[in-house]
């Protein structure tokens, strides 16, 4: 029996076949994959997972693709990134057990997007598409372009006009059609929703979205396995559309329902930048709905003013006793530097947001010393160099001379002054 039963509307419960649709035609609610958990439960086990490939595809049983064979998978190396137990950052923040889930080194495009794109393109090909597309703030476009190149699929990526240089180049190198739209991400997204209605393409975050979004669950699965089959007490997650946060919660609870982990009491915490914080602001004001905003922040990968999953992100945080907060652009830069200088991990701006909010939640007493805490670092700092270029100083420039070197560092001749 197939592991996918149907697509089901999260709002009204109407069921649909597992095709390339994402919206309920009755109430416009989002469609989500409904699995045959009874079947999955019969075969899934820790042992089976541990014997699987060294990638997120070790959780194949819980991902919405039909083919079981490896060669059908687009992006077979995505995921299973390091779970770094911090020493210095944990000590600095006063946390006994702080982990960094390090997707700055995800394969092949250095962000967590390789997870969702691997699922989306695999599913798109199963559904018979030969052209893939996306609306993106950069990381998603990079990943779609790379995977499409490897899979030999046609590709269109739509990006806002103000992206970081590395994220633009990180599309062009794979030679997709790169469409720069004069406007912000929300403009791009609306345009793409309209284009998706006219062309039979696989828009990974529109008509393929029910499948695509499921890829984020693998961050939760890996967390549990890498912590030694434990769920953390606290998860700190950056929010753009809010989808990642809701899927990490879903992944943790799926594992519990399937008997792979006990006692999931993880508090799901959300992080945004002040310049674009519709979800965190709604949380702070005690509302269950958000007001859209016009983004203005250096954390461009999180700059979604009209977050599709904002409502569900608020719900996930409330249900788990989590919290949300936001940080200024200056705090984003400080967060990036802190992570780099304590743990040697260079995150992009979204990572700065996560670290900044992590700090705030510790300070507020929401995250306690003994809480097992995981901070999700979703993208690589080399892609957003503009954000920190003025905050890291310059190299020390010297002549190629020993004397010049020693003088510059005020050292004596035989190493005196070295101490």
């Amino acid at each position, binding site marked *: 029996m197939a592991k996918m039963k149907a697509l089901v509307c999260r709002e009204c419960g109407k069921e649909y076949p597992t095709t390339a649709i994402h*919206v309920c*035609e009755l109430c416009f609610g989002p469609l989500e994959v409904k699995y045959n958990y009874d079947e999955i439960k019969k075969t899934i086990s820790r042992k089976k997972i541990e014997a699987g490939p060294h990638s997120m595809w070790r959780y194949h049983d819980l991902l919405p693709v039909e083919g079981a064979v490896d060669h059908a998978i687009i992006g077979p190396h995505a995921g299973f990134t390091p779970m770094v137990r911090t020493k210095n950052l944990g000590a600095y923040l006063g946390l006994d057990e702080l982990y960094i889930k390090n997707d700055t080194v995800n394969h092949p495009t250095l962000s967590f997007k390789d997870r969702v794109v691997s699922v989306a393109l695999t599913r798109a090909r199963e559904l018979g598409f030969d052209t893939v597309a996306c609306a993106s703030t950069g*990381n998603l476009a990079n990943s779609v372009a790379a995977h499409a190149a490897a899979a030999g699929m046609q590709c269109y990526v739509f990006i806002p006009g103000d992206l970081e240089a590395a994220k633009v180049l990180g599309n062009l190198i794979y030679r997709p059609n790169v469409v720069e739209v004069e406007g912000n991400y929300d403009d791009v*997204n609306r345009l793409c*929703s309209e284009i998706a*209605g006219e062309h039979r393409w696989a828009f990974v975050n529109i008509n393929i*979205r029910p499948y695509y979004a499921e890829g984020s669950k693998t961050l939760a699965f890996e967390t549990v396995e890498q912590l030694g089959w434990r769920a953390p007490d606290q998860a700190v997650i950056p929010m753009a*559309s809010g989808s990642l946060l809701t899927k990490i919660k879903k992944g943790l609870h799926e594992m519990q329902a399937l008997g792979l982990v006990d006692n999931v009491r993880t508090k799901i915490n959300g992080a945004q930048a002040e310049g674009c914080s519709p979800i965190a602001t709604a949380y702070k004001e005690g509302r269950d709905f958000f007001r859209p905003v016009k983004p203005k922040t250096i954390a461009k990968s999180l700059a979604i003013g009209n977050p*599709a999953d904002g409502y569900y992100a608020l719900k996930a945080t409330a249900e788990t006793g989590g919290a949300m907060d936001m940080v200024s652009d200056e705090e984003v830069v400080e967060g990036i530097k802190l992570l780099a200088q304590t743990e040697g991990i260079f995150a992009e701006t979204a990572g700065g947001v996560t670290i900044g909010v992590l700090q705030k939640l510790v300070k507020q007493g929401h995250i306690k010393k003994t809480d097992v805490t995981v901070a999700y670092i979703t993208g690589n700092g080399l892609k957003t160099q503009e954000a920190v270029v003025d905050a890291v100083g310059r190299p020390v420039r010297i002549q190629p001379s020993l004397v010049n070197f020693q003088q510059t560092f005020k050292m004596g001749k035989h190493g005196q002054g070295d101490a």
Partner: protein
Amino acid sequence: MIKVRIPTPLRPLTKGQGEVEIVGASIDELINQLDSAHPGLKGRLCDEKGELRRFVNIYVNEEDIRFLQGKDTTLKDGDEVSIVPAIAGGR
């Protein structure tokens, strides 16, 4: 006349048309007019209380009406209105 772009899930109600022309001095009125021309449309866009559903976004000349006056946003001849499902996107 106002040009209204209809999203895929609503096209069964507009005989498959992706764009319809309609009169209306505000979004509220436009929705009522749409419903007269294409019965059932209002029930899809609005809940029982007549409020726009959570996952429906409406744009006038590319601007989200939540940045304008919501359902009271006024319309003039030649304006273009888009109805777009909110669920899309994710960086």
